[in-house]
């Protein structure tokens, strides 16, 4: 059976995170995207209330971006953003990790910060971004361990903006943590072939700011893979739809 946009969209996040996006452009983007059953759509905090309004009657989670994209905010300011996002209707949070604490070796503060975020977020889905593109394999494992122990639902590999996630990084994380830590791949998912490779490596969700490029290359990528592999990936997507956390559930 073929993997259609309507299926793969359910395990995909998309986003409009551009500093110069006008309100009109945000509305246009979200209205266009809400025709697909995405897991979530991520926006800047400034546009969060607007996105909440536009996605009210859909199954799509609204994702707030916290300390985004650099993760350069101190804990108290970050927690204020999380509270504000909760009060303004966010279903999910993509949080750039405190890389300063991590690089300084202050793992206790880092874990405490993530715990506090998870606590304020309550039942909302929390994804922590350790920027794997900037880390050694050993540091990726360490960051993931801290994120898992602090109780976040997902690690999101990167925040995009030129950072690219490799299949090897996904494999590394999944071989270490399996289903105990969900992985959302972000950064460099430009087409269906890459999306499939990430799913095959164990990704639990895929994020891309250009989802139409993924949808438009689905047929081509499936032809290339062959029936057997496509079936394996399709089954995996269906399993993920059932098992992977999402605030508003699946249709």
């Amino acid at each position: 059976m073929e993997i259609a946009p309507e299926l793969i969209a359910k395990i995909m996040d998309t986003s409009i995170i551009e500093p110069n996006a006008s309100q009109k452009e945000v509305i246009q983007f979200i209205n266009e995207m809400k025709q697909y059953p995405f897991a979530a759509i991520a926006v800047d905090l400034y546009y969060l209330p607007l996105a909440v309004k536009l996605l009210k009657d859909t199954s799509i989670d609204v994702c707030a971006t916290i300390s985004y994209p650099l993760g350069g905010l101190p804990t108290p300011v970050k927690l204020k953003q999380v509270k504000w996002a909760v009060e303004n209707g966010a279903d999910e949070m993509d949080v750039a990790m405190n890389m300063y604490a991590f690089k300084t070796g202050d793992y206790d503060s880092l874990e405490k910060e993530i715990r506090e975020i998870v606590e304020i977020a309550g039942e909302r889905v929390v994804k922590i971004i350790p920027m794997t593109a900037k880390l050694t394999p050993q540091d990726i494992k360490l960051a993931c361990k801290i994120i898992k122990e602090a109780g976040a639902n997902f690690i999101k590999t990167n925040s995009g903006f030129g950072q690219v996630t490799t299949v090897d990084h996904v494999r590394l994380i999944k071989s270490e943590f399996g289903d105990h830590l969900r992985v959302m791949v972000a950064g460099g998912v430009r087409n269906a072939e890459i999306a499939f490779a990430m799913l095959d490596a164990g990704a639990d969700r895929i994020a891309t700011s250009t989802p139409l490029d993924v949808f438009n290359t689905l047929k081509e990528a499936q032809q290339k893979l062959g029936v057997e592999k496509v079936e394996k990936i399709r089954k995996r997507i269906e399993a993920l739809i059932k098992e992977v956390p999402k605030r508003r559930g699946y249709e």
Partner: protein
Amino acid sequence: MKLKITREELARRIDQTLLEPYTSKTEMEAFCNQARKYGFAGVAILPVHVPIARRVLDGSDVKVVAAIGFPLGSLPTELKVSEAEWCIENGADELDMVMNIGALKTGDFDVVKRDIEEVVRVAKGRTVKVILEVPLLTKDEVIKACNIAKEAGAHFVKTSTGFKGFKGWRPTTVEDVKLLRQAVGTSMKVKAAGGIRTTEQAIALIEAGADRIGTSSGVEIVEGLK
């Protein structure tokens, strides 16, 4: 090069910049000590690094410059204010805030203005620079943004974040600086930032009217002055 300037004078025009989140405590200490040695105007850094920079730079003339709403600028005003307040409380001397570019593009000029006014208010007289992100604006938008920043009481307009991840990003140019200088006249200062790597670039931008240069290559630029 017409401008006569010494290395020390050039350094006093430079905000040495390190806006990398994965900079450790030790690396930030080394960065600030180097800035102190060269006598830069300031160090432009992320909020999370403000306390350590304050400690290292205490007793020196080098200003701690915190980047607010960086690099997207797309925050509700109250959260931009939270960032600014925290940075001031933790020792920032100056704030480089990213304007709400999306609101400007939408024509919500009141939002853009209030955003700046509120940051200026909590800065309590400290220098506030408004980053316009000129590469993403039309000429008319740049002029409008300059007028808003002026009315809101900011001290500087700044050309760009220098954040290379944006679609349409390019290094800042002499034309960008001339446009800002023309728009603000002598009522405000101008900071040029974004892709400034060489002594020649820095001098050309100063000649075009830049009062301050934001660059991560401050050391190379000063050393390169013959």
